[in-house]
């Protein structure tokens, strides 16, 4: 049995189904992200786990005990969880120490124990030297660390994070991603992390649940999610990709202007008679100046339409000959092509994923 189990969880606001029947199980010590665009229901899900919102259907249970159901909801203060809020919610009327020790005092721990644990956790998040400060005197990143310390110090059964990095600037955000992962590796607290930033989710999580329109589209580890997306939404949301329509003809897939053997494509087993959509990542297409020599290669002539230099790579839009497709292709910074130039494209079929 999992640590935290959401089953058939639903929440309606008026006529809108914010969360529309989701199932998710977290193992003890697991770090799972809820990833999706704004309005997909991820924050509502998190707030239902916290007990701030009762579900309209389904249930949430922890260690086999039902916490939330439409019949009854255990209030947040009895769930032994902790949460990091989007606004941090650091209490401005208390010092860093008072903020962090608040939860311990509520648990009626002896003073010496409260002091010891508060001191320790402040060292862990590198805030020990600012213990006497008020939140107004701290930077955004420091407030974030206080929020982390305050949530972790109580050793919660589950740690909930609601877009905790969205108010930080880009550099700090990157630093804090690794900080959150480091703290998780150190304390192994079962964690649910809500974010709309795929990089954040991929750095921090053991598994990612991609949500869209109130439903979970796919739950997988970051590698599988990127390389074997199961739905069009997931393929498009995690990284950039080209979508190609195809038809199955015998043992070959026919695309607009070329064909590839169906056996070479990922997840080809999922294919049935219906229309087929393929996802081709821009970096899985090679740009060549001449036709590749090997016979097996899936290659076709094309013309460069647009190019943009982004420092770490070139971003090209190419049009295969005799085709209406516009493909995005990325190439190494040293590989320059001019718009209008004739090139050859070589596909790596093992990186082509059939979606439906």
């Amino acid at each position, binding site marked *: 049995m999992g640590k935290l189990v959401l089953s058939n969880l639903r929440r309606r606001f008026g006529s809108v189904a914010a969360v529309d029947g989701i199932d998710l199980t977290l193992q003890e010590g697991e770090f799972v992200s809820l990833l999706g665009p704004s309005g997909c229901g991820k924050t509502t899900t998190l707030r239902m786990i916290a007990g*701030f919102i009762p579900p309209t259907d389904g249930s949430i249970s922890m260690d086999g005990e039902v916490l939330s*159901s439409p019949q009854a909801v255990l209030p947040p203060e009895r769930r032994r969880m902790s949460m990091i*809020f989007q606004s941090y*919610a650091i209490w401005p009327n208390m010092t860093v120490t008072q903020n962090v020790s608040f939860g311990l005092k509520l648990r009626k721990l002896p003073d010496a124990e409260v002091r010891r644990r508060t001191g320790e956790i402040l060292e862990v998040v590198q805030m020990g030297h600012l213990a006497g400060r008020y939140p107004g005197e701290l930077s955004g990143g420091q407030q974030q660390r206080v929020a982390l310390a305050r949530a972790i110090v109580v050793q919660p059964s589950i740690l909930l994070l609601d877009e905790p990095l969205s108010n930080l600037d880009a550099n700090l955000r990157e630093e804090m991603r690794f900080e959150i992962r480091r703290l998780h590796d150190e304390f192994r607290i079962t964690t649910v992390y809500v974010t709309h930033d795929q990089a954040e989710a991929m750095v921090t999580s053991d598994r990612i649940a991609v949500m869209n329109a109130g439903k979970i589209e796919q739950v997988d580890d970051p590698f599988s999610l990127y390389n074997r997306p199961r739905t069009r939404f997931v393929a498009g949301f995690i990284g950039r990709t080209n979508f190609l329509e195809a038809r199955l003809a015998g043992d070959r897939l026919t695309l607009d202007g070329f064909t590839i053997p169906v056996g070479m494509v990922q997840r080809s087993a999922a294919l049935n008679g219906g229309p087929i959509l393929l996802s081709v990542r821009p970096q899985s297409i090679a740009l060549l100046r001449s036709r590749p020599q090997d016979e097996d290669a899936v290659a076709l002539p094309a013309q460069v339409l647009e190019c943009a230099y982004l420092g770490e790579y070139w971003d090209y839009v190419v049009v295969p000959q005799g085709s209406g497709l516009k493909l995005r292709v990325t190439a190494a910074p040293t590989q320059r092509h001019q718009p209008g130039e004739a090139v050859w494209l070589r596909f790596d079929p093992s990186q082509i994923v059939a979606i439906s």
Partner: protein
Amino acid sequence: MSTTTIARVPAAPAATPGIGALRRLRYLEPVMLIWLLLIGVLVFLVAWPIVELLITSFQAPRTGAWTLNNYLAAYGRTRYVDALINSLALGALSALICAVLAVPMAWACSRTDMPGRGFAWFTVLAAFIIPPYLGAVGWILLAGPNSGWINQAWSLLIGTPDSTLFNVYSFTGLATVIALHSYPFIFIFTKSALDLVNSEMEDAANILGAGTWTTTWKVTLPLVWPTILAGIILVFLETIALFGTPAIIGIPARINVVTTQLWQFFEAPVRAEVAAAFAMPLLLITLALIGLQKLLLARKSYVSQTGKGGERRPIKLGPFWRWALLGWCVFVCLLSVVAPMVALVQASFAKAWGRGFSIDNLTIENYAFLLFRHDAAWGAVVNTFAFSAISATLAMVLALAIAYIVKRKLMPFGTALAFLCMAPFVIPGIVMAIGFYAAYAGPPLTLYGTAALMVFAFTTRFLPIAYANGASGMQMIHPEMEEAVRILGGGRLTAIRSVVAPLLKKALLGGWLLVFILATRELSAAIFLVGPETRTISVLLYDLSEEGNLESLSALGGILLVITLLFVGIGMKLIGRDFMLRRE
């Protein structure tokens, strides 16, 4: 995404297996009971007096039969209809004078490099905190016919004795004195709107070839015109609901307005039912104009949109205009603050005020008489303090409880509470007082002449101000602040005690002081509900003004002024200098 905190737990029928134990953990917040209690209090304080006012206006006294006779009595005489017309004209004229006084000041303070902008701001603040009828007393000393300081100086100047430059006992005089107290409203409205106008708006006009004046007339002022108009409406409404100044100046000058006429209906024999009928137009006009004002302010949301980003640079005035505008501010300061207050203080320390500033005319006898020998003055000071403090406390407690329930959406229909709370805002104080009289003066409660009636009336009158303060304070506390307490294991009460209350301290104190200060000067409701034992400073001031002893009157004014300054000082020290002058 909605982040509504819903702690409501539906009753659990049909126990699903496995949640039986959970049902015992059901957590029904006591908020439901509090909500009912609050509704009860608000109905008592706000709704019932209004309902009674309406009922009374349609009932024959004694028999209680339905009738329209009260309305016929209220409008059957030209004298009464004239009072209504006078009120409207007075409101319009004083609003106009206010705009002339305030708009140049606001523009100079907000948009230009005029020297002494801090001084102008201070002038406005001072004019605002002086109780209006004290200004009226000051102006009687300054511009009474023949004997007023200004008219005496004028007589000396032109060499004709007993000539009058400006007679305060006239329609224009009355309107001017009211305007000299009310212009801060328009100043605040105009300045806060101008503060939001981005300099780039003006730059865009400049770059197309418009000079400073063209830009100001064609771009800047049109942007804030709706806000100025909203300020004018506010002054108009304040004026037609004002009792003190029209009573002190208007009655001797035989200028009858609605409020003084209402007062006359309350002279023995009391005709409360006619007063109720006569008060209806005041109520309806106020409702309509507040609606119009809301419309004006809502339509011009673009003013606030221009405030985002962009820098604001003061316009560089030429030497002439710099000093001309400052001169105007000094002039307004003299008329609204310095001259009337100097005259008032001089009279309060004078044996006979007309003898001027000589040493042998100095005395503290006026104060000593009031505080130690007058049969009612000391009691009035004590009453004023007690009533104001109790009503301020009641109003803030009510307002906060309601603001909390509404802002945290703890109950469905929480907004009904907020609506009742804000309702007194659209009811002139004097109308509210007649409603209170109708509802509670007689049986079954028979509160007439009790301190409770005064306290209830003050509480109701200032409830909207208290609510605006409480709600804006609550607004600043992110719900996540409380949720952070709860997820760590604290209940809602822990959250309120350890986070909400400490964070609201300043807003609470500011609201309390504001209500307290406004309550110490309250006259228009007090005058209708006061009994022999419950006189306040303001009521006593009015009584003294009828007796015509200007020295004692001034001394009592001095006492009220000291109290006001003391509490404004405390507020500015603890909360910041703008605490009274915020646009709500």
